């Protein structure tokens, strides 16, 4: 049981971290609470189902193609629906809900409401110390960790990363320093949706695909992001691991755990939030009190 908790906790933690970091990025750079974020994750999973299973492309082509298409969709949605009305924050919030609903309904119409599965990219498993871990899990954990490291490098070592971080700290000053904050926000949106798409593509063989699969991760991602501190990448990462392990432990150890997993994860989030109102690594920014 302990090994199950470890494997599934690490796996879910990695996926949640991926989603939460993307959510955090776009909140930081554009102050958009993108409730369609996990919908992009779902679209990524369905894209790889369509290209890989229906069009029977080789995974090496299907996966990058899916990620690219989903990222493009994200950027287009940003420019058409979010950028022009960015100052009306509540309207943007509802627009992201509407976008998520549009994705859900389009998938329902195109693919139907049945549960779908994608065959694994790699088969087989290793069993160190009697724990059975399939290669697909290892691949997912590996790709997710690599992507997270890549994002970290982009944010810390490149000009774009500096621009994203500075516009997250103070959009107006960043603008005064000659940065095109609208384009930075668009680039951040691409990065954020790209991360969600990679997560979706990688977990497609492990999860069952259905048109409502965006709702449950959304609640958890929101919890993770405020637990870690809004806009903090490190916080999202730590928060994801904490909540994923809590969730998995509850499922494996408590009777009726499947009903209670989200409730207990959220209760722990609330307790932490009462002690630290700005989350684990969050800071209140000047002028946004």
């Amino acid at each position, binding site marked *: 049981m302990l090994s199950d908790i470890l494997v599934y906790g690490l796996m879910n933690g990695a996926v949640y971290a991926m989603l939460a970091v993307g959510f955090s990025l776009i909140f930081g750079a554009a102050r958009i609470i993108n409730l369609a974020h996990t919908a992009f994750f779902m679209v990524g999973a369905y894209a790889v189902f369509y290209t890989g299973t229906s069009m029977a492309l080789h995974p090496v082509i299907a996966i990058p193609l899916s990620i690219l298409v989903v990222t493009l969709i994200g950027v287009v949605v940003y420019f058409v629906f979010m950028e022009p009305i960015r100052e*009306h924050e509540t*309207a943007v919030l509802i627009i992201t809900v509407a976008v998520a609903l*549009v994705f859900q309904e389009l998938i329902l119409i195109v693919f139907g409401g049945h549960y779908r599965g994608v065959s694994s990219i790699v088969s087989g498993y290793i069993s160190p110390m009697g724990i059975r871990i399939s290669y697909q899990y290892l691949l997912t954990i590996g790709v997710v960790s690599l992507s997270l490291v890549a994002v970290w490098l982009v944010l810390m070592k490149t000009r774009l990363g500096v621009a994203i971080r500075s516009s997250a700290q103070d959009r107006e000053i960043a603008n005064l320093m000659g940065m095109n904050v609208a384009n930075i926000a668009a680039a951040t949106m691409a990065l954020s949706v790209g991360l969600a798409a990679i997560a979706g593509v990688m977990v497609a063989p492990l999860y069952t695909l259905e048109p409502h699969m965006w709702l449950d991760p959304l609640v958890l991602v929101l919890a993770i992001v405020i637990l870690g501190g809004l806009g903090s990448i490190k916080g999202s990462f730590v928060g994801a691991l904490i909540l994923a392990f809590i969730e998995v432990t509850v499922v494996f150890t408590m009777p009726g755990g499947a009903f209670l997993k989200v409730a207990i994860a959220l209760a722990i*989030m609330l307790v932490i939030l009462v002690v630290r109102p700005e989350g684990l690594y969050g800071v209140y920014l000047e002028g946004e009190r």
Partner: protein
Amino acid sequence: MAVMRMAVRYIRNEILVLPTRVIGVLFVITLLLLPLLTQDMYILRILAIASIFAIFAASWDLLSGFVGQVSFGHALFFGVAAYTTALLNLRLGWSPVITIPIGALAAVLVGLLVGIPCLRLKGPYLGLATLAFPIMLMGIIFVFPGFFGGELGISGITRLAALRIHEYYISVVLMLVLCFIMWKITDSKIGIIFHAIREDEIAVRASGINTIRYKLLAFCLSGFFAGIAGGLFTHFLRIAGPSMLAVLMSFQAIIWTIFGGIVTIYGAVAGVFILYPTLEMLRAAAEYRMLIFALIILLVLRVMPEGITTFVRDKIERECPRCKVRNAVTRKECRVCFADMR
């Protein structure tokens, strides 16, 4: 006779001068007189449910629009009241006249319980933390299916009234009265403090106002009105189910209010009365129903991001540059101070 003349003068000078007031009065009269034109069960049912949801949406606007305490878990109040009402009615056999107020009081209590730990949270943190409460309650409901009815909910509750037309009038009149009360609250001294807390809480505290008390008051008031809506809804549908606590329920209130126009109360009512019947009419489109609905919201908010009522109001009325009184857009001079409006 003198009273008649005063009434006529009031209508001419205070209502007919502003197109938005004419629209508002026409809306109320239409709702109240509609059963004279049609007794169609289906139409009355939709409008009654829309009225109940209008109370719910307006209560969200009171808390989140006016006080700025954005709540993503407003279904908590609705659901708590719904379950309290249903359990009291089913287990103890109490009539709706007693169960609905007690349900609303339970929602007020929950408002306090939620409000106290959330006092330190601000902005998105508060919104996302409140999202957690109804989901946690839903977990508890699923764990005790014997008492709360689990997935299927609690059914077999008595009707709100024996006849559909009575139910219609109870819902519509309560909606009009409660929304009027909420509107008056936001217009009062308390309402000004609510506005100020949203704009700058530290400044309000520096002015010697106990913001904690007012924030808790806002949670309680909002919980009370949402609770009445929840109780009414339970007795109307004769079922209390976990869907009343779902994330979608909370977001529906937000969608309606923002679509109609936030920080207005009447915007929330307008949003519900536009979107809810639209969604019902879209049943004709079968599987494209939710898609068309989402696209409508997407396109309308893209064009009118401040909400439909605010958009229309600014198109047909203008503010006098001198005395800040609203005037119909057709007037050449202000109706109060005769300043030039062109």
